């Protein structure tokens, strides 16, 4: 045990050194000072109350979409269409948020509409899988491109602002907005929803019948089918759940941050979510720090960018950090395996 944790620590240290020196090298090649870039990044991510709030605001959609990916990937349903489901969720939330629904119901209606939007968008690939065996990885991706066009159309058509000037919608009603956590800051109460879903999913995968079925089906074993599990139903449910979550992320973005729909709408949350989910090793709880890391990187980068650091350099730094984490994980695993082999031999 002691040797194990000492080993993990050494590997982590080694990779931190590798990551830091690589980043420093890149920044110097780009002609800037590594220290000032690091400071700008850190400052942008957690330097002020405002920046911390911004990091968390970036984290919310990443966390929810990552959970959508986690649940689908656990069943080996490679739903890479979370981006499209996010967009459809945003579209329906924008529509429902403008309905005159009494008081506190407005927010509920808005979010439920967004979940329906996402679920419906994932229903199409799910049905294609169920009836024709079409691979989710392909069909869900294609749905993303259609979703982008749907957004482009609605903000020029049915949902365009009443003055019909720009390709954007009218804002949703104030009653349908998610309340801010602290007055004056952007951070909205979607953060509680995101955290609650992460905890709920943790219980779902560990302690429920559905989670157990997910595990059996996700192992890829034919035994699930031969031994009488309703495999098809489990897979369709999983895809719909994943889609509903993707949609909810879009709805929360409308209700919590932008309050209206514009074209283009997404910053690629649905794609980044795949990286977040994989970084979290498909653990719902692990998705929280993973999403936070990405949120901080996004927030820090935009601050550093306004401090004059080229966006390309920032993107390279983000990539180096990701690769270093994966590299550290890989080194630790292979070393541990070697040690285990050595112990049995």
């Amino acid at each position, binding site marked *: 045990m002691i040797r194990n944790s000492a080993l993990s620590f050494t590997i982590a240290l080694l990779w931190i050194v590798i990551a830091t020196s690589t980043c420093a090298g890149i920044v110097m090649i780009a002609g800037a000072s590594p220290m000032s870039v690091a400071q700008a990044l850190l400052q942008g991510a957690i330097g002020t109350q405002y920046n911390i709030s911004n990091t968390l605001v970036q984290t919310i959609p990443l966390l929810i979409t990552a959970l959508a990916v986690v649940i689908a990937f656990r069943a080996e349903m490679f739903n890479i269409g979370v981006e499209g489901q996010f967009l459809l969720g945003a579209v329906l939330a924008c529509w429902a948020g403008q309905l005159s629904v009494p008081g506190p119901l407005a927010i509920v209606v808005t979010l439920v509409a967004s979940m329906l939007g996402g679920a419906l968008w994932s229903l199409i690939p799910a049905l294609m899988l169920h009836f024709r065996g079409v691979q989710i990885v392909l069909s869900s991706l294609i749905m993303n491109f259609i979703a982008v066009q749907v957004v482009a159309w609605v903000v020029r058509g049915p949902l365009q602002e009443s003055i019909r000037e720009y390709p954007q919608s009218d804002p949703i009603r104030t009653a349908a907005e998610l309340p801010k956590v602290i007055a004056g800051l952007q951070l909205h109460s979607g953060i509680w929803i995101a955290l609650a879903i992460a905890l709920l999913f943790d219980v779902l995968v560990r302690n429920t019948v559905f989670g157990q079925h997910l595990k059996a089906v996700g192992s890829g074993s*034919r035994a699930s089918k031969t031994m009488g599990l*309703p495999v098809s139903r489990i897979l369709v449910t999983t895809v719909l759940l994943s889609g509903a979550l993707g949609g909810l992320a879009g709805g929360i973005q409308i209700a919590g941050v932008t309050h209206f729909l514009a074209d283009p709408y997404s910053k690629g949350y649905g794609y980044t979510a795949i990286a977040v989910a994989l970084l979290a090793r498909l653990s719902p709880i692990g998705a929280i720090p993973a999403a936070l890391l990405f949120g901080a990187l996004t927030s820090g980068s935009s601050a550093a960018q306004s401090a004059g650091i080229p966006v390309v350099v920032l993107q390279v730094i983000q990539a180096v950090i990701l690769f270093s984490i994966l590299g550290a994980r890989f080194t630790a695993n292979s070393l541990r395996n070697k040690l285990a082999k050595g112990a049995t031999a």
Partner: protein
Amino acid sequence: MSQPVLSIHNITKTFGGFVALNDVSIELHPGEIHAVLGENGAGKSTLLNILAGITQPTRGDIKLNGIPVAFSSAVDAAKAGIGMVHQHFMLVPTLSATENLILADMVENRAWFAWPAGPVRRRIAAQAESFGWDIDLDARIDTQTIGAQQRLEILKALQGERKILLLDEPTAVLTPGELPGFFATIRSIAATGTAVVIITHKLDEVVSVADKVTVLRRGRVVNQCLTADTDVSNLAREMVGDASNAFAVLTAVKQKYTASDNGNIRVELSHAAAISGDSVLRQGSASIQEGEIFGIAGVDGNGQDALAALLTGNTILHEGSLTIGDLVITPHRKCTPQDFLRNGVSYIPADRQTDGLVMSMTIADNILLDRVSEPPFTKFGMFIDTVAVKRFAQSEIERFDIRPADAGCIVSTLSGGNQQKVVIARAMSRKPRVLVAVNPTRGLDVGAIAYVHRALRAATAAGCAVVLISTELDEILALSDRIAVLFEGRLSETVPAGVSKVDLGHLMGGAIN
């Protein structure tokens, strides 16, 4: 007698501790058709791979025209005049016949470019004509029939004046209608002085085409003779083994079946037909009663998979009718394995590691794989009652003596015998009225075999009807109360347990009734 063109002496091949071939010797003479017969896992493929230079023997010599040789690769063997046709064709579907043959030639000679196709095409056309074949050499492979593709594979294997042709399960891909043509082909090739080796587990093929036969069982040669000196039933018995092994001891397990014809019928098959993958059940009729073990014998690949899938809801019924437990199945009615399980039909599949178990899950997870969603293992309909699950799994572990006795142990770490006990524990824990068991002792040691047999017998004592589908003839004989034989997808008439091995051998070789 002529000098053998290829001979192997005392070949032994081991993989780790496993002996795939043990002291095997074979001589091949020019113009002779030699069949190598054996069950799956008997060592046929290993033997063929050694002859084709794909694997090298652990011990023993290979002589080509009396001169010792050592092949280090398939190309070596090919250069020495040995051509092989694999069971799964190695043709590029989008190229024409001529292009495929040129490509094969390039690979063998490590050539970087090909000569103009004309001469090659003329040469192949001449060769095809000499066999009396009419082949379109310019059509794409994927537009040609399987029979034509096989002829092309043979032409490919015979390129460059090869004198030895190895065929791996050549008839597996052919329809019955294509067989006579295939046999004629083989004879015409042999007539040109080529030695032909056919690997097969189909007995009638051996008798209809081969001059000599070698029967392999568990890596050893059990018989080597002229085909004229033997018959299908003898070969069947030699292939599946004698009573001199573990099963004889277990006959004691059997309690004489006394139920009369008026027992409750649990499975009623009537002219049933079904397909599962490449396994076909053409026609099966049988009535199986409670309290009996109904043995279904037969050489592997005669429709066992389709029958098992049909009896467990893993495939649909195409024709005929099936009543199993309380389920009445009509043709094309959609049914799931779940429906069958809930109606008292449990299943011990042939391949426990892929069909029976989720290897990455625990013993408890596997025992309750299909039942965690049912009371008493759930709380509020959706949460798993982990205490109830653990208690139940632990009691089953004790009842079936699964080791290690730890419900949280991952199944992939268990021995084969204990994995099988987990499958049996799950099957029995539903208190089934029908139990379908397919090769339930394959790959197990003697102790575990005895255990499985006792468990099946115990199931009948509880009133269950057991359908035992096994390719081990001795297992069928040791356990069954009544027996039927599957041959080419057809189920024979039911015979009583006292049937002689010779008679069963006849049935397994296709002499239905």
